[in-house]
């Protein structure tokens, strides 16, 4: 801290978080998403079948209407999930980490390393089979101060965890 200076600086010269090239999630992760979508669609199908399998109470127009609506919802689920996958990205800078997500709104969340409280590593059932993992980074922020990066290679996730742990240790 002794040789630390705090001169007035031009805000344009600061490193810009928005011009960082983001890393994308592993393409393998799409298989996990596919399974998730499959489950959702299956549930939707069951609901639709229950609703429409009493033909005496519904006219053909109603049945058609239900199936059309169901189809649109199903399509939206698939489309949003795939687009959501494409939109997710992360980057590790010298002093902070960046995570971008969101389809309708593009959200960019930034956590400085000196605010990280702890790091957790999650593996789902399918993810483990594919050798993928999810890293979760916690801060003391009470509402939405945390970042979850899914679809990382297990080794990468482990390395990220080590990196962050190292940063936290240094801060302490």
């Amino acid at each position, binding site marked *: *801290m002794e040789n*630390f200076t*705090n001169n007035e600086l031009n*805000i*344009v010269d*600061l*490193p*810009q*978080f*928005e011009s960082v090239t983001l890393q994308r999630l592993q393409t393998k992760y799409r298989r996990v998403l596919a399974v998730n979508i499959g489950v959702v669609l299956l549930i939707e199908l069951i609901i639709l079948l229950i609703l429409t399998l009493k033909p005496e109470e519904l006219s053909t127009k109603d049945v058609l209407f239900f199936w059309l609506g169901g189809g649109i919802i199903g399509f939206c689920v698939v489309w949003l999930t795939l687009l959501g996958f494409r939109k997710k990205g992360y980057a590790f800078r010298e*002093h*902070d980490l960046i995570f971008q997500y*969101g389809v*309708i*709104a*593009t*959200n*960019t*969340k*930034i*956590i*400085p*390393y*000196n*605010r990280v409280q702890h790091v957790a590593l999650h593996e789902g059932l399918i993810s483990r089979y594919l050798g993928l993992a999810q890293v979760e980074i916690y*801060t*003391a*922020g*009470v*509402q*939405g*101060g*945390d*970042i979850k990066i899914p679809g990382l290679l297990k080794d990468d996730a482990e390395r990220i965890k080590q990196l962050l742990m190292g940063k936290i240790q240094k*801060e302490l």
Partner: protein
Amino acid sequence: MAVNFHEPQRQSKIGVLVLFLDTLYKILRGFAPLLLVVFINGGKISMFLLFMGLVGTFLIVSCVAYLRYTNFTFHIDPNTDEFIVYDGILSKTKTVVQLQKIQQVNITQNLIQRIIRVYGVQVDTAGSDKHESEIKAISHELALELKAKLLDAHKVATVSSTTEVDEPNSEIKPSTFLKINLISLFKVGITSNYIKSVGLILTFFFSVWGKLHEIGKEEWLEDKISEQDWMVNSIAYSILFGFLVLFTVVFLMNVVRTVIRYFNYTMTEQKGSLLISFGLINTKNTILRPSRVQFVTFSQNYFQKKLDVLELKIKQAVTDEKNHHKDRIEVPGCNQHEKKAILKLIYGKQPEQGMLLKSNWRRLVFALFLTIVIPLCILIPIVNNSPELQVSEVYGVIMGYVLLMATYQFFAYKTYRFFVGENYIMRQTGAWDIAHDILETDKIQAITTSQLFWHKSLNIGSVTLHTAAGNISFYLANFETLKHYVNGWLYQVESHDHNWM
């Protein structure tokens, strides 16, 4: 007066009275809705039964108070250096607090205790925000001596420790930092929380109605209402009268509530921390540590500005997930001068207001869309499909709502401002109660920027600052400017290692 605290001690004898009133208060609070129902049934209860009921209650409360008195003992165990409190009639509790762990001993006095001239003692440890043990009624000398004993042992045990403990003699001459008098509380009472109070009245009304409904007596209330036949005579007159009654009740309720809750609000300075105690019936104590403060909000409406009172909310880092409110300190009524003193204590100086950033006009349009267009889209088809409704009257009400809401949103948009300074970020919100949030840049935990895809070409977006006490967001401002600020904040947070707690 030498008291041997090593032997189990009882509270002072007169303390039975405190316990009596305390028990009575708790019983009354618990049975209030039931009593009301009985009262409404009025005529059917004979005087004899009423008398018996009163005598019975008196006897039961006396017994409970006496048993609470005899079963409550406290002492210091010299062998293990522990403060031990026995409590309870049927389910007994033994509270053991290690003397070393004691952070704070507060001597308190609420209204009842003041009348009877006894004092309460609250013992706090670091672990939780609630009081570890509380003695309800002992004499002042005894309280002081107990406090000295409790903290004395602590000092002997941890001479080298750096734990902050207030000196026993600091209680004798505490430096009062701020004291809110009745007039200020009255001012706050008549100028705030209208909507909350109206809500409370409605809830009360409906809960009484619900209770009556359960016992099949709701006609009683309906009859009472229809009995007021003058109401039908003139709608305008009855509406005016209704408003008058409602506002009187709201005023009274607000004043009474504010006074009960914040009576004798005192802030005492103690080694850079503030000790806060308030309350008429239940005295509450909290500690404000400047380093734990995450952000400060002060709010003021037009009347309060004229009367020079403002409400201050200080949010500390959340330590207990379940008790968020414990980390929020409210100063119900202070003037500009006192506000500045509090800010100075927390930040060491007056936070400077930075560069102004305003929101895009689309923010107003979006707010109007949410609060007017969507509700109307749902309401109008319903109104048109219910033939029993007087369409013209309903549309009158709807028009009134639209006008009111539009005015509200317009002023809310007008006040919506963001100020970014070198070390402080401020946000101004509200239409009637205008609130200012002050956030120190170093307290930022994480930052989220957000932009809807159709706002990309317009170059507007939002930012959310995550702190350990909640979020502060600013919506739909120039995105380029926001991103510059974000880079600046990140630089500030990352380049020095300030403690945020």
